[in-house]
């Protein structure tokens, strides 16, 4: 909203783009025009075709029909090298870095600063340094190995890479998914700087607040088709956007908390003085049946580690975890699962799913013994139970024999949830349960989590979205640099206070 897109002729025009995957019509005629100096937002539910569209635009896929016009002339953008040459830089949804190369090498991968094939390392380091400074991250050393960085910092490196080229169009596919609010603001600052220089930006996000803040115009996709194009952000109410995306009206809100939950409910999860050397220490946590406890904090504060440690995926260096009053053996996932704990991990794809396996075997993997007699699996029963759950959670598409890979992000998340529903666990640990999940599915997940709690499950939620934590949880813990700095009822605290706590460790008046 900083600059007014002026030029009549769009920088990029895509018309009638069709992309057919065998059996799936991912794009069925999409139009998009982007002007220099604007932030153009792409909206749509999971699986609407947003990523596919930008992959066509950046040359990863070749489209079957339609035209791409660049700067007034029809252009071909495939393979990626061509798009790059035109000045199209892309930050993909899945991180696309090489883990064992250092930061500078990743930034200049493919267009290395070199003379006669030899790397000019000091020049690369210098320029990488400048790029990172410009992005507000002087603390990332260009010599750091990228695999050692947190996902958020890796995102910054991707960003630096995009800026390292002479960019005229920058595409960001859900960049905020791994960033906390502070980081998102930082990102917006950079985007504004770029648009001021006349760079066009295509921005994809499921967080409507972000769209409101940074976007100029919006294109909405539904089922691979454009249902609204060039909508000015300022003139389009949120309800209208949601209706366009989902075809129905959903209230974009958190399900109501049952106020004044009786404290007499049984304590299910009790954590005492839990610590993991070098990461966090002294965590105390009590969760009663039917209660949702939220953990919030900055990226890298150690929230994921707390969940993983109490789940037994990491071996605690101090402290105890008890379920229903019984101690759980340290560092043993098996013991935790048997005691009734379930974890939906942060990285769905690398930690949660067997991508090439069917949906049903992903659902039943934690409860195999229930379907086994003398070790033999009853696959019919497996599928039946998985189908029931798929129906209950509204997992789409419905078939449970498809590989999990083909599902959209929101539906993949539901598959992992179904896994623990099937196991009927007493304690459910959710790490960023709505990351990359669209508005519709997000509301469904909130409702589901709340109904689970109402059925007596103790829930712990980690999220970087403070609003989400405040809205969903009954009680909130704020984590900062590996320590719980605050604990209170969710109703007794507001966003600004949490932000203060997160940043400073105390409430600044």
């Amino acid at each position, binding site marked *: 909203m900083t600059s007014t897109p002026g030029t009549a002729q769009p920088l990029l025009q895509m018309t009638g783009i069709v992309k057919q*995957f*065998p*059996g*799936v019509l991912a794009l069925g005629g999409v139009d998009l025009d982007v002007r220099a100096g604007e932030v153009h937002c792409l909206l749509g539910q999971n699986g609407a075709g947003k990523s596919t569209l930008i992959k066509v635009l950046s040359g990863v896929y070749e489209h079957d029909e339609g035209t791409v016009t660049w700067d007034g002339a029809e252009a071909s953008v495939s393979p990626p090298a061509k798009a790059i040459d035109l000045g199209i830089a892309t930050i993909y949804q899945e991180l696309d870095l090489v883990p064992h190369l250092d930061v500078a090498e990743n930034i200049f991968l493919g267009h290395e600063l070199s003379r006669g094939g030899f790397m000019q390392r000091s020049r690369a380091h210098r320029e990488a340094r400048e790029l990172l400074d410009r992005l507000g991250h002087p603390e990332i050393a260009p010599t750091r190995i990228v695999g050692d960085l947190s996902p958020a910092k890796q995102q910054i490196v991707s960003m630096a890479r995009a800026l390292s080229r002479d960019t005229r169009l920058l595409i960001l596919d859900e960049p905020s998914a791994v960033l906390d609010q502070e980081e998102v603001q930082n990102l917006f600052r950079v985007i504004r700087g770029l648009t001021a220089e006349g760079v066009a930006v295509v921005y994809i996000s499921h967080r409507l607040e972000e769209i409101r803040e940074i976007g100029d115009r919006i294109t909405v996709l539904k089922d691979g088709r454009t249902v609204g194009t060039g909508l000015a952000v300022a003139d389009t109410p949120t309800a209208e956007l949601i209706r366009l995306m989902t075809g129905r009206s959903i209230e974009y809100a958190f399900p109501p908390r049952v106020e004044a939950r009786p404290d007499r409910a049984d304590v299910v999860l009790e954590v005492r003085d839990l610590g993991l050397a070098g990461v966090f220490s002294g965590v105390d946590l009590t969760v009663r049946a039917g209660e949702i406890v939220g953990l919030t904090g900055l990226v890298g504060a150690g929230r994921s580690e707390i969940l993983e440690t109490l*789940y037994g*995926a990491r071996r605690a260096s101090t402290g105890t975890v008890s379920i229903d009053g019984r101690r759980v053996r340290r560092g043993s*996932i*098996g013991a*935790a*699962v048997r005691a009734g704990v379930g*974890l939906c*991990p942060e990285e769905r794809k*690398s*930690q*949660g*799913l*067997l*991508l*090439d*396996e069917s949906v049903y*075997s992903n659902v039943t*993997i*934690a409860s*195999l*013994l229930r379907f*086994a007699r003398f*070790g*033999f*699996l009853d*696959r019919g029963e497996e599928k039946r139970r998985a189908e029931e759950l798929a129906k209950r959670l509204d997992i789409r598409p419905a078939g449970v024999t498809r590989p999990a*890979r*083909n599902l959209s992000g929101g539906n993949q998340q539901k598959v992992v949830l179904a*896994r623990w529903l099937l196991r009927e666990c007493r304690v459910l640990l959710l790490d960023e349960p709505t990351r990359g999940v669209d508005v519709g599915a997000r509301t469904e997940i909130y409702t589901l989590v709340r109904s689970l709690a109402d059925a007596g499950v103790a829930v712990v939620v980690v999220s970087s979205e403070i609003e989400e934590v405040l809205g969903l949880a009954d009680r909130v813990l704020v984590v900062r640099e590996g320590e719980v700095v605050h604990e209170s009822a969710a109703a007794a605290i507001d966003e600004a206070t949490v932000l203060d706590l997160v940043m400073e460790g105390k409430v600044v008046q």
Partner: protein
Amino acid sequence: MTQDSARVERAALETEREANPALALLSTSVGRNAGLVVALLLICVVGAVSAGDRFTSSDNALTILRLAAGVGVVSIGMTFVIIGGGIDLSVGAIVALASVWSTTVATQQMVEDTHWIAMVGVALLVGAGCGLVNGLVIAYGNVVAFITTLAMLASARGLAEIISDKKTQIIPRHGFAEFFNGDLLGVSVQIWLFALVAAVGWILLNRTTFGRRTVAVGGNPEAARLAGINVKRHTVYLYVLIGVCSGIAALMLVARTTTGSSTHGTLWELDAIAAVVIGGTLLTGGRGTIVGTVLGVLIFSTLTNIFILNNRSFSEQSLFKGAIIVAAVLLQQRLASRSNT
């Protein structure tokens, strides 16, 4: 991009399959390995044309199967290990060690005192023991499988040589060879054993929790672990399993040659891995089929048989074998959809 195009193809096949019932049929078990079946048939046609009924006779078919049986049994175990994300280079050496250990004077004394079943016990125990060591070092010592089993290769063969003093140990005549080398319904017991191991392997992989876990452990060990599977313990099981398979193969070889020797099973690891990989199992783990492995083993032994029937030199055999292997894989890729049968 390889993966991408494979995925696209796969998806294409899936859609087609839904539309076409014939294809749907084809896509079950054997059909999933259509490319290999076609390759094997083509090879058989070449055999029939070049060697006539010397190739097509049922005796010859049995010869091919008998040749396939030993490596075949090991390959079934190898399929599990590779699907589970590992590799085992020590199978040949374990075969040697088990064959030697089960033919020592001491073991034979034991056999005389009790029953030849003692030999079977010794061979299986030796195999399982070596597998256990491999598994423990890999899972709990975090040493990569390639190195661990390479080390086991050296150690097991060295031990076999020390035990046998590098002599070929000939077993006395007793029920053992009669049983393991006998016939049942006109078919060699060796072939029955191979069939049995393959069938058990198929059921284990496709119908049991163990198989499901193997796929999970190889496909995404971190996800498997977070789903509550004890990945380390399962890894140990896998190596014990292939150790037991090596023990069985050792017994078959002892019966067939009436000897135990530290040179038995030389380079079987390569044969087994080649058969498994040509059978469509991913070397990176997480996906593979028993049927594919069996076809892979048969392709190799049929090729060898045809070359010998035609009195071709070993050199020519090698030269063409290379080309045929690549052709078979290309065929497989064109025709095969993914599967985990």
